[in-house]
């Protein structure tokens, strides 16, 4: 009824190609942003921040990054955990080596370092495709984790082999370290998530994004149009790793505070992020957020229902949680193989015509 595009004529190409062409969508987007920036911080409890909001934002950034590589460029990667570890360790080294550097610079630099490492590991993608590339990136996952464990320089020779984030503040508010306020940490992550989503949208809608999708859909045709496959794939690896590096950096410095590489950035992380984008929707920015929300919220929700609501013992609930989440993933993939974003798209199409389908 109210979800109408009739009468909403676009008179310029600029207007026609905007991100939310329908006014209602645009308004809803601004509304969500306003709630995220203004309303949520007022009601944010420690538990909500640490168990739900911050991990959601961090994983959403990682999912965005992986989606650029897998969803937009079609290069399957299982190296996400390793690249997040690079981001985290880069942050640690930068924070300890340059105590005066502000956090935004530290995180952006960590992203750039990861982008460089990612581009290096993207080199094989020119020769190998599909599952074989997945195996090659899997090698990078194990290699990076091994390297960060093996060379004590990366963790400043600490006896435990752990890295821990020193205290840093922005605008006089502590955002990292044990005394960080959850609201500040949340807002810090939110700014990054929003900025990076905007960046991802810009990169995927233009010339570069089209060259990525061209490589994904038909690499031979892409080449005769003038797309250099090496540049397209490497830029996708670099941009993707930039996002993933920032996610790793935030994950370590803002969320975990202290991390040990095999535990925090193991192969399970790579799979979790891959699940997020498959469930959320490949090649969709909105899908990255939905997938991250699903994978973060579902366990929390189940735990609350099973332990809090039904009074199950914690260990039993923890195991059931795995079963239910796994089952839900399978159900979702059968019902809608193109992910939750596609579901939203279909719903929108239907709403456009509702209540008169003809």
């Amino acid at each position, binding site marked *: 009824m109210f979800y109408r595009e009739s009468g909403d004529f676009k008179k*310029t*190409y*600029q207007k026609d*190609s905007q991100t939310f062409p329908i006014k209602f969508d645009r308004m809803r987007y601004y509304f969500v942003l306003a709630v995220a920036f203004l309303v949520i911080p007022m009601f944010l409890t420690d538990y909500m921040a640490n168990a739900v909001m911050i991990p959601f934002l961090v994983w959403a950034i990682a999912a965005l990054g992986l989606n650029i590589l897998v969803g937009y460029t079609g290069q399957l990667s299982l190296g996400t955990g390793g690249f997040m570890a690079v981001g985290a360790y880069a942050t640690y080294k930068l924070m300890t080596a340059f105590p005066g550097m502000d956090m935004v610079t530290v995180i952006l630099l960590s992203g750039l370092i990861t982008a460089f490492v990612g581009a290096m590991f993207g080199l094989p993608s020119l020769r190998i495709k599909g599952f074989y590339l997945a195996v090659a990136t899997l090698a990078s996952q194990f290699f990076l984790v091994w390297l960060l464990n093996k060379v004590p320089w990366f963790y400043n020779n600490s006896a435990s082999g752990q890295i821990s984030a020193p205290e840093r503040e922005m605008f006089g508010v502590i955002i990292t370290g044990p005394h960080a306020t959850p609201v500040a940490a949340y807002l810090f992550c939110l700014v990054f998530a929003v900025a990076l989503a905007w*960046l991802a949208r*810009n*990169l995927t*809608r*233009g*010339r*570069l994004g*089209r*060259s990525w*999708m*061209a490589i*994904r*859909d*038909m690499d*031979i*045709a*892409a*080449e*005769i*149009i*003038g*797309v*250099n*496959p090496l540049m397209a794939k490497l*830029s996708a690896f670099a941009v993707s790793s930039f996002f993933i590096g920032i996610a790793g950096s935030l994950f370590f410095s803002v969320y975990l505070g202290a991390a040990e590489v095999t535990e925090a950035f193991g192969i399970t992380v790579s799979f979790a992020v891959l699940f997020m984008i498959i469930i959320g929707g490949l*090649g969709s920015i909105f899908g990255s957020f939905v997938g991250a929300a699903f994978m973060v919220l579902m366990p929390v929700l189940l735990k609350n229902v099973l332990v809090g609501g039904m009074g199950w013992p914690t260990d039993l609930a923890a195991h059931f949680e795995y079963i239910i989440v796994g089952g839900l993933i399978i159900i979702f993939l059968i019902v809608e193989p193109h992910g939750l974003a596609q579901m939203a798209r279909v719903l929108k199409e239907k709403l456009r015509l509702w209540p008169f389908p003809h």
Partner: protein
Amino acid sequence: MTEPLQKMEAASKLLELKNIDLSFGGVKAISNISFDVMEGEVRAIIGPNGAGKSSMLNVINGFYHPQQGEIWFDGKQRRSMKPYQIAYQGISRTFQNIALFKGMSVLDNIMTGRFTHMRKNMLWQALWKGPAEQEEIENREFVEDIIDFLEIQAIRKTPVGRLPYGLQKRVELGRALAAQPKMLLLDEPMAGMNVEEKEDMCRFILDVNDTFGTTIVLIEHDMGVVMDIADRVVVLDYGRKIGDGTPDVVRNDQTVIDAYLGVSH
């Protein structure tokens, strides 16, 4: 076609192939073929299956590198190049089996054809507002002209995977045209079409040739079409050239007739 000979005399050679040899292992796909393409003409390559027609296009296009021979394009001898570098030289093509980007809309497919004409680097694109958006809009205007030209306005936002075969072929032509090529290679543009769609396609090809002055090299099996729209025809058989000339000359050539109909022994 109006006076093909006159048209040719005025024009210069856009592409010249000299003694091209191409083999895969022991199989000779093309042996010692030379021919030229004049600026602004419609040049057809015909021949029975396996004659080396598609290999010929792939040589022009840079997918295959001939073991011997010279390729002259636009007055310069071509060194060994990658296909994407050749795109920047002004050659674009369509494929025998449609090679569209299935996950993208018609508009995005044709916009991708503008790739070589867009210059703004990654940082500008990341910011979007400003030069990148400006460039995008300029190219969008060009693409909309092509959409008008091919009469596919109504489907510009449809994902190409959903379109019927004939329209997909048309979109692919649009994508090739978007690059504003000097030379357009069409690999069986009318394969699998009904008469009506074939007529449409012929009209588009001739219009492209007329309005944009694009040189066209096409492979086609429908002899009626070839004889109607081509200025000159090259006939290949078993990787050798067996005929070259205007449609009328080729049609009456005994070797060509033998190749197509077989020789009685």
